[in-house]
């Protein structure tokens, strides 16, 4: 799944760049379908975070940035974590879960008030 997305990301990037300058691929940031949306954050180091959510969830960009910060705090700073390996840290997962729940609750409230 993730590798398919990575390929898509690069494809989309090469179709956008007419100059052929491939220093920083600027690939897919958002996919919108009828039942869901996907948003992606690419860090300067090439790591991609992506989230799927409701089509009207417009708070994902901020949430992705928060998750990036959580990643640097709970994963990268973990002395036993080896970069590029799968992440299996409950502290990270719990923190992400609480942020996501909070963001989606706030998002739903905002949508209900519209």
């Amino acid at each position: 799944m993730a590798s398919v997305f990575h390929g898509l990301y690069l494809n989309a990037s090469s179709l956008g760049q007419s100059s052929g300058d491939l220093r920083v691929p600027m690939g897919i940031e958002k996919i919108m379908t009828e039942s869901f949306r996907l948003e992606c954050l690419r860090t300067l180091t090439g790591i991609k975070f992506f989230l799927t959510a409701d089509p009207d969830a417009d708070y994902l960009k901020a949430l992705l940035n928060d998750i990036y910060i959580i990643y640097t705090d709970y994963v990268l700073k973990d002395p036993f974590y080896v970069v590029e390996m799968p992440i299996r840290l409950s502290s990270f997962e719990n923190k992400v879960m609480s942020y996501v729940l909070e963001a989606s609750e706030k998002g739903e409230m905002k949508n209900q008030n519209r």
Partner: protein
Amino acid sequence: MAPRKVDTLYIFARDGSCLYLRKFAGEMKQDAKEVEIEKKNMFGLLFTLKTFVNSITPRNLDEQEKEPIRYFQTAQYQLHYMETASGLRFAASTPPNTRNMQVALGRIYRLYVDYVLRNPSYRVGTVINLAGFNQRVDAYVREIAG
């Protein structure tokens, strides 16, 4: 409709062949080989995107059901997509953060039906080279550009 600036319009047949590729964005000289590469890459991207979206959708899809893609966006462009029941694919690239273009793509499909399909000299599934269609598409793109 709020103004929408279409940069490129693509029409692909079900088998992946590009029936129509039209750029509205000014003078970008591309040689024939680059254009062919662009067509293939675009179709490949759309095809893989569709497979990806169908597998990642939270909705429970039936056997034949597919998840309709509306658009995707990069930092440099936004690609709006519409697929007809017959497998014809319409894609339009615009600057990022353009509003939804499903209605506009529907109109262009209508133009295709009226000026391409109904044209007695056009053979379905071949490259579209019809002045009438080109004119109508130009006029419509200009109209929605605001």
